[in-house]
């Protein structure tokens, strides 16, 4: 199956990634111009810390029994609604049987009503079924961690090959938990935590962090760079340390933290589009002001511009875009979208009014090219998106030199 034939596999995630890539790139222009390119990295880690705190809170206030029950029922208490991940989901299996490896002959796992799709279920598998073969090493490998989840998982998956449920027994628990058993393999809607507590906490942490880091002033000993590094390390450490208390939920944490570039729900796609549209609209409207006062903040204040309000809007939009982007595509590509397209635009454009537009186009293109490369080359999606952003930026640098020399 060609990339285009498999469009039903990637259309939603690519639309969401392109939208969020465009928004992040527009925001990234400001991080580049203000020389705070590590701000997005710190914010994505803060978003992760928010997710972990949310899960920890739920873990603390929910009775273990209730938690166990809800896990069995496919409902995660943190999400507050039914977890649409299939019953064959990795963590559900762990909760149920203490085994990460669901056995096909385990009636408790694969019943007639099992969420694991049966090959002969026309509602799940089309002729060109995208469901991967479980024994396909390109699909289920231990390397398929969340951030590195490869479109190969979706790419090898074609040609009407029928899934062999019994082969699930060959899948490592880790791989099943991270890719196969979770959102995508069963052909069901992914874990639909679109407006869940973890997501809202991620947003809260990222936006609060953006405001605090944006407004903090450099001192004689504490530079902004140092502060960004400190926040990055502290937030990363908090994720790992607090994560130790909620090991059963870490799969969901990773899903929210690093995104799931294999598949997202339609609701999540619309959420990403809405966030991107809001951020882009704000930047189209306010970009000239953002640029003017960033260029000369003292004069802007002297001339009566509402600098603090504008800064708050700018940093909130950064938090919004980065928390959303981290969720959709993962921390690495999100950081790449915040860094590279802005530089590409600065290389090409000599008129400020086009900076955001060109950066946004580069962000969207990086998402698409990265996803396409992941599909064609069977490489991890997050890494190919980051590599695509870098490659496009290098091309832009070369093109910019040629254009501006003439």
């Amino acid at each position, binding site marked *: 199956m060609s990339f285009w034939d498999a469009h039903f596999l990637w259309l939603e995630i690519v639309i969401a990634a392109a939208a969020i890539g465009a928004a992040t790139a527009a925001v990234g222009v400001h991080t*580049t*111009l203000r*020389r705070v390119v590590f701000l997005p990295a710190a914010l994505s880690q803060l978003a992760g810390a928010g997710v972990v705190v949310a899960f920890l809170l739920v873990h603390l206030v929910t009775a273990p029994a209730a938690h166990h029950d809800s896990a069995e029922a496919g409902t995660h208490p943190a999400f507050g609604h039914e977890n649409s991940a299939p019953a064959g989901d990795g963590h559900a299996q762990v909760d149920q049987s203490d085994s990460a490896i669901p056995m096909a002959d385990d009636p408790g796992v694969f019943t007639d009503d099992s969420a694991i799709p049966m090959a002969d279920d026309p509602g799940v598998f089309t002729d060109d079924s995208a469901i991967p073969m479980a024994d396909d090493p390109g699909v289920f490998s231990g390397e398929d961690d969340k951030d590195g989840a490869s479109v190969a998982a979706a790419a090898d998956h074609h040609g009407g090959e029928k899934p062999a449920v019994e082969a699930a027994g060959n899948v490592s628990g880790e791989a099943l938990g991270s890719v196969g058993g979770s959102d995508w393999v069963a052909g069901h809607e992914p874990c639909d935590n679109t407006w869940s507590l973890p997501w809202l906490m991620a947003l809260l942490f990222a936006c609060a962090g953006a405001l605090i880091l944006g407004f903090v002033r450099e001192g004689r000993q504490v530079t902004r760079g140092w502060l960004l590094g400190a926040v990055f390390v502290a937030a990363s450490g908090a994720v790992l340390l607090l994560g130790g208390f909620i090991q059963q939920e870490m799969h969901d944490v990773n899903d929210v933290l690093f995104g799931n570039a294999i598949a997202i729900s339609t609701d999540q796609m619309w959420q990403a589009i809405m966030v991107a549209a809001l951020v882009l609209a704000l930047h189209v409207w*306010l970009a*000239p*002001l953002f*640029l*003017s*006062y*960033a*260029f*000369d903040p*003292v*004069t*802007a*204040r*002297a*001339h*009566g*511009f*509402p600098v603090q309000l504008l800064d708050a809007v700018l940093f909130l939009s950064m938090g919004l875009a980065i928390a959303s982007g981290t969720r959709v595509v993962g921390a690495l590509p999100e950081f790449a979208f915040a860094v590279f397209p802005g530089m590409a635009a*600065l290389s090409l*454009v*000599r*008129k*400020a*009014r086009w*900076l955001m537009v060109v950066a946004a186009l580069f962000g969207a293109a990086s998402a698409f090219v990265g996803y396409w490369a992941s599909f064609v080359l069977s490489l991890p999606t997050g890494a190919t998106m980051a590599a695509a952003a870098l490659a496009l930026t290098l091309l832009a640098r070369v093109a910019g030199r040629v254009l501006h020399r003439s």
Partner: protein
Amino acid sequence: MEPNCLLECNSVSIGYKKRVLIPGISFDIKRGDFLALVGPNGAGKTTLIHTLMGIVKPLAGVVRVRDDLRIGYVPQRGVHDQIFPLSVLDVVRGGGGSQGSSRFSLGTDKAARAALESVGLAAHSERLFRELSGGQQQRVLLARALARDPDIWILDEPTAGLDVPTEKDLMELVEHLSTAKKVAVVLVTHQLWLAARHAKKIGLLNSERSTFSMDDVGVMMTDERLSELFGRPITVRDATGHCGAGISTGRVS
């Protein structure tokens, strides 16, 4: 406030983080005034103008301004990051709109082009600001302040780093425009000859003694005052290249 008064300082203490640099500053600025602020490094000149502009709050006292007062600020050259690909027109528009415009709006193209015309840079409006010479950049910043149709122009060392002919041209332009548009000027400078040549009044900031004194140029520009200000013997001739008699008449020609 008197009807002609644009800004009034009443027993204002300036400083940062509760550290008072100079207490008890009192003066006012009227339409058509040309005031130079002079003092050694760290004396508080920039702090004083930031206080006048409302960027820094006074530690004591009150700064009163006319209700619809418009300030045009010209910062020091070299404070702008060269990474910004802003055209000359973008920079001038970035100073904001004139009377009655929203706080969220930039200046109009028309006003920006008119201001550029008045500083002789109309032909450069589409060039990148960062590609201009130092003197041209300062003229663009003057145009940015001018485009707002200000009541007071506050210039923070506008000629720092410029060669002598460019410095002279720039200050003549400032004086010409301030006279033509009846704009009050507050000039911060280390170059005493500029203050002596163009200002009507001079304010001396002495951080050692924590004092501020202001009067007509002829009164302030004396060997004794300058020596006291800089803590070493300095004559008016040393500082300005002109003898004291020339200065005492008011403005050096």
